[in-house]
């Protein structure tokens, strides 16, 4: 009979606190869901107790050789170790993916991060023991107490890590939401880190003398910390690159806009010149009392020139009312693009818009998708109007984008189906993506309408 088995119940609880419970607590912190729900709590209790039972109970009956001290060769115990690890990871993934409703990529990232946090905390405890020179053997009478201390340390430390991570990398979350590429990079990176960690850990578990030589574990932990650091530096670099790209495109769009304004200036200068000439001519008609000549002059010259004044070139005038740079930039880019494509484009803003209470990266992407869809539809149609407006209602800001659409456009509920596109496969993800982006911000509401030949998207941005 092994020493460890002299306290089966405490060992059971120890194992539960050390290896099963922290995973779910950390996962919930990472997902920022602090309020427990009954169904989820039941699932967590069931899964953690099941895994703990699977791992510990056979040992009580001596089915596997030992629990804490593994044998050197690849025995049942190692098999049981790998089996329970795989199972609990799967259960955790299922919890995040199904019960919490996260998309696959994000669920994988969350699962792996959770596991890494818990295991790093666990190894930190081992390292601490090593540094304090407390022999980690099962012949120590204080062993149960030490184990419990270690278990609580894992629980608290991993929760603390997760909290710090959530606080420190809050903007990483926002970036992840907007960038599919970054999601993939993060997923692959974390899988590689995690797998190498798992392999090394299992190997050391099998080859070393378990708890007795913990230096290899310390090395392993060092490896994890280093790889995680490298990994985060890389993400930071990616983020910086992303930011510069954003700024560059913003600048490019604004240059576009400045160009447009300069052209308008020229038109106005020309008009001013014409206007002075017109006044002089009228005066000469008056001087000679030539009223019929004046009449003819008015209808032929003045009326036509006033018509050109009201046309196109001034339809984006109101963009000057938008004082939020990023928003002005995306609107200018898309509206000028539409105009150069020959689409009848108009922008309305009667009030100054100084601030918008939302993440501007997300708002830019949302407006980009909405305007792209409208332009694409109008381009395919070959006629029609694009009208965009921005206005305030109390404190909230509303964007309205309205475009003419085909006569035989499918009903709205079919357009909104996942992945549907009227233009063939793979191009309809815009609308679904749009809904996710809108939902990622608590104060955004999107209303989509199809009415009297117009497709209308209204985006409301409320107070935070």
């Amino acid at each position, binding site marked *: 009979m092994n020493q460890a088995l002299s306290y089966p119940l405490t060992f059971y609880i120890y194992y539960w606190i050390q290896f099963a419970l922290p995973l779910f607590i950390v996962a919930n912190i990472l997902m920022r869901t602090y309020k427990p729900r009954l169904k989820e709590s039941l699932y967590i209790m069931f899964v953690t107790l099941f895994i703990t039972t699977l791992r510990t109970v056979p040992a009580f009956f001596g089915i596997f050789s030992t629990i804490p001290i593994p044998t050197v060769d690849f025995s049942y115990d190692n098999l049981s170790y790998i089996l329970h690890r795989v199972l609990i990871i799967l259960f955790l993934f299922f919890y995040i993916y199904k019960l919490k409703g996260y998309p696959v990529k994000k669920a994988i990232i969350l699962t792996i991060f959770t596991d890494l946090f818990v295991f790093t905390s666990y190894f930190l405890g081992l390292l601490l023991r090593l540094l304090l020179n407390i022999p980690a053997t099962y012949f120590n009478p204080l062993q149960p107490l030490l184990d419990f201390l270690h278990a609580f340390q894992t629980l608290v430390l991993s929760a603390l890590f997760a909290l710090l991570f959530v606080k420190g990398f809050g903007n990483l979350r926002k970036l992840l939401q907007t960038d599919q590429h970054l999601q993939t990079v993060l997923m692959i990176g974390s899988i590689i880190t995690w797998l190498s960690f798992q392999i090394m850990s299992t190997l050391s578990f099998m080859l070393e003398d378990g708890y007795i030589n913990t230096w290899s574990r310390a090395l392993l932990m060092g490896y994890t910390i280093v790889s995680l650091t490298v990994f985060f530096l890389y993400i930071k670099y990616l983020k910086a690159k992303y930011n510069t790209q954003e700024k560059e495109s913003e600048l490019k769009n604004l240059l576009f806009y400045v160009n447009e304004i300069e052209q308008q200036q020229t038109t106005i200068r020309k008009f001013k010149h014409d206007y002075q000439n017109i006044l002089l001519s009228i005066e000469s008609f008056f001087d000679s009392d030539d009223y019929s000549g004046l009449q003819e002059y008015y209808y032929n010259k003045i009326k036509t020139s006033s018509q050109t004044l009201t046309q196109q070139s001034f339809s984006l005038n109101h963009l000057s009312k938008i004082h939020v740079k990023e928003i002005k930039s995306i609107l200018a880019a898309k509206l000028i693009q539409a105009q150069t494509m020959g689409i009848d484009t*108009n922008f309305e803003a*009667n*009030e100054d818009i100084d601030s918008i209470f939302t993440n501007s990266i997300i708002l830019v992407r949302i407006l980009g998708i909405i305007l792209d869809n409208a332009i694409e539809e109008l381009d395919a149609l070959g006629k029609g109007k694009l009208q*965009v407006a921005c206005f305030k209602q109390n404190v909230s800001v*509303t964007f309205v984008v309205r475009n003419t659409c085909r006569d035989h456009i499918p009903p709205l509920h079919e357009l909104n189906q996942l992945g549907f596109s009227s233009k063939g496969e793979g191009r309809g993800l815009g609308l679904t993506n749009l809904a996710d982006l809108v939902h990622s911000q608590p104060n955004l509401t999107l*209303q989509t309408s*199809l*009415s009297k030949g117009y497709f209308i998207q209204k985006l*409301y941005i409320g107070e935070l």
Partner: protein
Amino acid sequence: MLDILICEDDPRQREQIQATITHYLKKHHLDMSLVLSTGCPTDVLDHLKRYPDTNGFYFLDVDLQHEINGIDLATRIKEQDSHAKIVFITTHDELSHLVFKYKIEAMDYIIKGNKELKTRVGECLEVAHTRYINQMTTLDECYSFESAGQVWNIPYSEILFFETDLSTRHRIILHMKESQIAFRGFIKQIAKVNPSFFQCHKSVVVNTENIKQVHKASRTIEMINGEIVSVSSRKIAILIARIKP
């Protein structure tokens, strides 16, 4: 009685509109009267302060040569007189379709310098009159919810069904006849709001008023716009019993 108010800073155009309206009212005997014709927006606001119960029909110039422009004025009028019917008078240059329609919910707009001014004013008066009559007989009841810090009122007759978004919890998509909107909420609570609402599925509350047909075999409901909603097996008998009488 519907009160007509005009706010136009150019005296000549004001007189023209005024004359058109009085002429039209005399000829067609509509239940309306011209109570104010002014060039200054503050006069309109003062009038509303003095007569807060005004049920008004407003002709507003957009550019009033005043710190309050026509759109601001309309916003303030709406705060006082929520059923205000507003028609903007504007030049082609200042035309803001979407702001008129979606911010102010203006009834219509008339473009200045248009030769059809008379007929357009007449049309607006007709429409306003009909709306006024309807408003008296049926005050449409609305479903209200809050989203993005705003209160939304959707007439029950517009509502087809509510469904929870399967990908994200607590997000409800409201399907209306011509549009869709998503907001945060709980489907169970919605079912209790109105007697014509019925929870036909764990994630769907349907407005029984707007059902076209119930297909018992496939356990689905066809809504009046052709959308298909599924019904759980336990609820189908209850649903059929409910919509039968």
